[in-house]
């Protein structure tokens, strides 16, 4: 996985972004009404649980990018969207719904708070990645239509090399996910498996 002389997935070049892994998006009792439509959610979470220790052991920065809404960031248009989706609120600051689902940042991980689907919109994610001199962003987490995909596209627009870690992305129906992965693979960048990444890291050693 090299571009020119650059090792695209070299541990010093990349970071894992784990998007929206929160109760409201994943738990059956969460606010997101479509939380239960991914039959593979548990499998994806297990894949993430296997992948993160491998990334950490390689020194790859792990960033938990979470959604938080509060009374300052809820606009009339957001309220209309929630109404359409049959929700009273989503990932409200300090609520159980905003808490991480099954996984939590470890000591050397970083939590980044976002306020809209994209992790880059009015957040310090870009600065954090630049401070860590990250060139390749490995996307995992929840939300094929929202969090993961919007963050991936904004990362491309900001000139990062972006890879979707397919087996570590949950959310949506299998058909939706397949369509989006296909679109991403054809028009945007690359879709990879966590196994291929771990293999590349181990071979590089």
């Amino acid at each position, binding site marked *: 996985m090299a571009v020119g002389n650059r090792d695209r997935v070299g541990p010093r070049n990349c970071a894992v972004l784990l998007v929206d892994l929160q109760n409201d998006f994943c738990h059956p009792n969460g606010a997101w009404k479509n939380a239960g439509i991914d039959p593979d959610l548990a499998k994806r979470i297990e894949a993430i649980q296997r992948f993160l220790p491998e990334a950490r052991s390689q020194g790859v920065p792990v960033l938990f990018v979470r959604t938080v809404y*509060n*009374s*300052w*960031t*809820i*606009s009339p248009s*957001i309220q209309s969207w929630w109404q359409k989706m049959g929700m009273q609120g989503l990932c409200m600051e300090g609520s159980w719904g905003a808490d991480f689902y099954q996984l939590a940042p470890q000591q050397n991980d*970083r939590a980044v708070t976002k*306020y*809209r689907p994209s992790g880059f*919109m*009015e*957040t*310090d994610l870009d*600065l*954090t990645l*630049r*401070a*860590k*001199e990250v060139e390749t962003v490995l996307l995992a987490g929840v939300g094929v239509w929202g969090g993961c995909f919007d963050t991936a596209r904004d990362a491309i627009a900001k000139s990062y090399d972006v890879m979707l870690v397919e087996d570590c992305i949950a959310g949506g129906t299998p058909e939706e996910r397949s369509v989006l992965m296909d679109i991403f693979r054809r028009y945007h960048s690359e879709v990879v498996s966590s196994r291929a990444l771990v293999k590349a890291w181990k071979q590089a050693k």
Partner: protein
Amino acid sequence: MTISLKQRVDPKQAALVILDMQKGSWPAKAGPAGGEEILPELIALIKEARATQLPIIFVRNTHSDWTTTRSRKEQTEHIGVDYRTRYWEGTPGNDFLEGLNPESQDLILIKHSYSPYAHGPMELALRSRGIRTLLLTGGSTLGAVETVAKDSMVRGYNIVMIEDCVHPRSGPVYDVVVDYVNRHLGITATSGEIIACWQTAKR
């Protein structure tokens, strides 16, 4: 079309912004005339702002290894200071100065450089709340305050810099900034003039 001070500070469309008023922001060598000098006027203004239900935004400058770029480290090295600032994330210097007590309805916005627009939901919050005018306080006058005045003006917001609630609030640098703000970015007024507008509106 001239917009009056009273219209600008109308609590229905304005917000009070308090910049970088943290324990570590003001070096000991600044002596007793550090940022604490403006606290009496600022605290009185906050009290009146709360009474008029004006939205309040506390901006906190925070640095950490996660957000310090190589260029920032090079710049601090160039001027011979430690890049680990006195208001480093998780240290007491990052706390707000005594007497400034954000409440649950206030917005606490973290920034990592001069402008809160760069790394946090500043504009998202202003738009979501329908805020059009920013009343700027805190410090430093030429650093964060002037930067936010300019960054806000170019985004279409009205600016009122509060003359006695910025630090420094006298001297050549202050004079230049006041002149610049009044000519190019907005207006300046004293906290007393603003409080008088709110009190007149209440009657």
